[in-house]
């Protein structure tokens, strides 16, 4: 057995683009009629001005004007409504995209799920490299949650979704690599915090949610809608919103899809998934809306039913054939099942309808990079630059592509640019990749320094530790090499390389017992790793001889 530089495969760090607000507001049901004031005054009518500000999305200005109006006349319903809308709009987020399961939601998940689902039918048991279409861990590195690295980072992409297995890596879930990417304790909790934070900014509560009489509010149709949206998006007071919405839907004779969708949303946030699903389905009968299909798919994903989620998207596509969000949804589900080859076909389809879809381009690029076609990946990254994306991750990835496509004149320039732009965490990844370039051109001194810098930027950069270990071993520093491997495997229990390297080193040192346990660990992480298996076989032979 030869000692090989089992460097973790280079990983372009994932792009971090959030498409908040990428979708046009699907719930803009209010038509605020502009009240023309016929009085020819020198001053413009403040309400007209406020509406104008609102339409130009200058919500803060709008809110101040409305507040002044309300001070003069607290019963001015129009001003009140406008202020309510402006507040909602200001803190409106596309919760279809960024919903994320909290730690507590996982821990306290009461839905019993099959412990041994067939591979490919559950997020907790995605395809492995053994299955056709699965990803080899050697070819595609893993993110810190043990999922293959994707080209586009969204909340939840790199984490295991619902399931009992994810309980094991609870500590990794709590430990986000980038600031702000830690998994929230509860999804509601984060919302609540955002809600209180925004309330503190505006100085006092706008609506006293607890004092509202649900029945009375529900009777005032448009105001009720505005109030419910406010409660959901600003205050994150789902319980109250649900009260009003249920009264309202009753008054509407259960015929208004909007109210049902809102009830479903509230119930989903409160964890009543089955009830939410019923509401969405019933709402869908009233009116076929894209957002409802997305919500339903979210329900299926939360219940760990990827196949059902795909089915939901497909029924949606029957009526909304060109809706890229639905196609994106299918692609993401395939991605989470570790089946990138399938996901890629959908990302390509998205580009037919929307040729500057950042997520699709990024995913295609990373797919091509990891399937050994860096020149194609380079094309996609260049397209991203054209689309106006400018981030250290992107330049880093371009640098890697150039290097591997042997366009050496541009490679290092890209890294240089990435380094100047990078913050601490991204810098670690970029330096790590510079280290790989060093290994690639045989300049091990450069590589060593780069890996050292990488770990100084991010002390949890396990891949760098592993590679440092390999380099230390080449220099003959056995003890330090071992320390590095162990450090690496401690930080990242999803990497098989440090385990294997450590096992190999221990074997050479004659510490068979330790070697055995490390090799076992490697095989556990990556069951198809031939070298580890070979090593284990050797060890077994050794033990049986003795």
């Amino acid at each position, binding site marked *: 057995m030869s000692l090989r530089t089992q460097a973790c495969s280079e990983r372009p760090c994932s792009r971090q683009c959030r498409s908040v607000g990428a979708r046009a507001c699907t719930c803009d049901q209010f038509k605020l009629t502009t009240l023309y004031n016929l009085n020819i005054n020198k001053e413009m009518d403040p309400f007209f001005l406020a509406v104008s500000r609102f339409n130009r999305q200058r919500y803060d200005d709008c809110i101040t004007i409305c507040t002044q109006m309300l001070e003069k006349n607290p019963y001015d319903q129009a001003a009140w409504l406008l202020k309510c809308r402006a507040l909602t709009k200001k803190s409106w987020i596309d919760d279809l995209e960024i919903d994320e399961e909290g730690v507590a939601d996982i821990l306290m998940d009461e839905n019993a799920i099959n412990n041994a689902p067939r591979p490919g039918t559950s997020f907790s048991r995605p395809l492995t490299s053994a299955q056709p279409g699965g990803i080899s861990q050697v070819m595609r590195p893993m993110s810190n949650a043990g999922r293959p690295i994707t080209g586009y980072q969204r909340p939840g992409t790199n984490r295991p979704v619902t399931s009992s297995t994810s309980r094991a890596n609870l500590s990794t879930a709590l430990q986000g690599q980038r600031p702000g990417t830690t998994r929230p304790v509860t999804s509601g909790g984060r919302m609540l915090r955002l809600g209180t934070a925004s309330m503190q900014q505006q100085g006092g509560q706008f609506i006293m949610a607890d004092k509202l009489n649900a029945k009375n509010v529900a009777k005032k149709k448009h105001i009720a809608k505005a109030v419910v949206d406010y409660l959901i998006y600003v205050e994150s007071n789902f319980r109250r919103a649900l009260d009003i919405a249920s009264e309202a839907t009753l008054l509407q004779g259960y015929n208004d899809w909007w109210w049902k969708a809102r009830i479903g949303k509230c119930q989903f946030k409160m964890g009543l998934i089955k009830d939410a699903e019923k509401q969405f389905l019933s709402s869908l009968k009233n009116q076929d809306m894209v957002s409802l299909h997305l919500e339903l798919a979210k329900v299926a994903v939360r219940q760990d039913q990827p196949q059902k989620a795909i089915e939901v998207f497909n029924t949606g596509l029957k009526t909304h054939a060109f809706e890229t969000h639905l196609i994106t949804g299918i692609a993401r589900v395939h991605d989470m099942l570790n089946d990138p080859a399938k996901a890629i076909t959908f990302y390509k389809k998205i580009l037919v309808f929307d040729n500057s879809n950042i997520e699709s381009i990024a995913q295609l690029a990373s797919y091509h990079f990891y399937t050994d*076609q860096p020149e194609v990946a380079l094309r996609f990254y260049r397209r991203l630059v054209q689309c106006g994306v400018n981030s250290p991750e992107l330049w880093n990835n371009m640098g890697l592509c150039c290097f591997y496509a042997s366009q050496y004149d541009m490679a*290092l320039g890209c890294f*240089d640019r990435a380094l100047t732009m990078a913050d601490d965490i991204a810098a670690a990844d970029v330096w790590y990749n510079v280290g790989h370039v060093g290994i690639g051109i045989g300049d091990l001194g450069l590589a060593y*320094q780069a890996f050292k810098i990488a*770990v100084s930027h991010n002390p949890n950069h396990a891949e760098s530790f592993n590679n440092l270990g390999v380099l230390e071993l080449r220099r003959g520093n056995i003890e330090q090499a071992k320390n590095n491997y162990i450090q690496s495997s401690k930080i990242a229990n999803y990497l098989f390389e440090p385990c294997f390297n450590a096992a190999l080193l221990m074997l050479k040192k004659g510490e068979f017992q330790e070697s055995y346990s490390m090799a076992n660990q490697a095989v556990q992480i990556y069951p198809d790793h031939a070298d580890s298996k070979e090593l284990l076989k050797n060890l077994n032979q050794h033990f049986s001889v003795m």
Partner: protein
Amino acid sequence: MPKAKSPWIHAWSDNVAGIDTFSQLMTLADIKDDGDYKLVVADQKGKLKIYMGTNVISNEKLGFEKPTALEVFYESTKKPQLPIIAIASGSSLFYYQNFQPISKFELPYIQFSPEEKEVWNQITKVTEEQEFVSLCDRLFAIRESGIAISTISSELLSLENALEQMEYARQNYTMLIQHQNFITCMTRINKSLDEEKAVSMLVIGTEQRNIFIMDQSGMSVKKQITLKSVPTFIQCIGQFDVEYRIYAACRDGKVYVTRQGEVTDQIFSIDSKPVGLLLFEKQIVVASMNNTLHSFFLKGKKNFTMNLPAGVVDIQKLEVKRTQQSTNGQCLIVALNNGELRLYNSKDKNLIHILKNEDLISGMSYGTFGREEGSLIINNKSGGISVKMLQRQANLSSTHKPGPPAEQDIPLNVPKKTKLFVELTQRERENAQWMHKQFQKDLIKLRLKTAKQYIQMLSDGLAPMSYAQGSQIRLSASCEGIGPSFKIKLQLQNLSKTPIMGVHVNLSFNDQIYKLKGKSPFMPMLVPNLNYKIDIDIENIDPSGASDVVKVLVFNKESTVPLITANISMPLSELNMEQM
């Protein structure tokens, strides 16, 4: 692995038959001459059982223990042709016919070699110890010269004390002169006709390296052959009156061949002890103890050696005679000690089928059972017995082609080089010089940048490893908790050879956001290579739970530059419930 349909049909099984036997003690024979073949089994516990179909029709108690071999032969062609069952035990042969014991034959005693006899004659007369010892030495010399000595002599030599030896000699001297011969294996050979029920004779292998060929009545020895080693398996081919050869697999890992009763020079050697021997039309197959199967052509050339995944328990020959030429065949049934029953084509050594037996196999017998020609009787370790039948339509030709495995021909999934790649190489070819220059320039710049950063990192003493002030310290810092209280966990390790004294750990943070609970820790001494774990509690006091970076500084009195520093980017904090 071939996925072909199983060629076996499960006929019946009796898991509680309680039979403890092995292949040499099982045979299938037409006991009553009615065309209905019975299973004859001699049990290790001393029972002779005869099965007709699923019933035991005879359960005779043997008058002796530990049978070693069982064989069936025909004494005459007189109708009805009732075969004689011969069971070997120790040095005796017991004959049964028509379910009843008929006679017994004792193998002739072995005569001492004249040299040994002479020594013993003198030993009895000797009284002096000196003389006795010299006689014992002579006995030893006789053994060393390759002459077989009796068990009594070897026992005598194994005693250490001369007095004990004399005592032993005095006691045992009466039963001298001759000693017993033990049977190791047994088979039969036809006398003059190549027919199944023709008159046949027993062929017996013994511990004394002999092969005896008995006459057809089984009451006298017709021929005696001496081999170089103890035979454990023997197989015969031909007829005694015409021409015959005997193949004997011996304990020394060799197969000796005798032709017409004469030992020939031909030897097939295997590198381990044999556990089974089969004779085919043109080859012999020997299973050996080191998990291998060897095959030799009768002419002497080696055919193949095959490694098996587990130890071989037994091998059996499977012969199919059918009208269709293509399905005719000779196969090899191999029972492994992992419970597998493998079927190999004996011609091209290809695996046809693997049957997973639920229990370990201890013995088996293939032949006609009842009226079914292709029956396989299996005796399990647990005492059960089961019968499998070969499908009439079973495809016994090998399912996959010989040669390298099929996987070898499947090309690897290497992505094709794209047109883009070709274009890029074109560009590379045209601007090679310029590109190289540019690359070298960039590389030097990058090296400089890296080196600068590296130096800065060293001088700042940034975590996780620091060499500031010539010390080697490792610091790993992490943060646990969801807020507003967090625990910062530090691990300090001094990797140098000398201890570091008076180490302070200090946190630097935005006091609008965080508040330290308690004091900054102080370490009086860092002993080399020990891992110091330090926990620091810190509280988030920001009303909206904002997050910030917390700096950990480790320093001592000797320098203004810290020994090592680490930056912890704290997570967003959950809000304090009491404040809400």
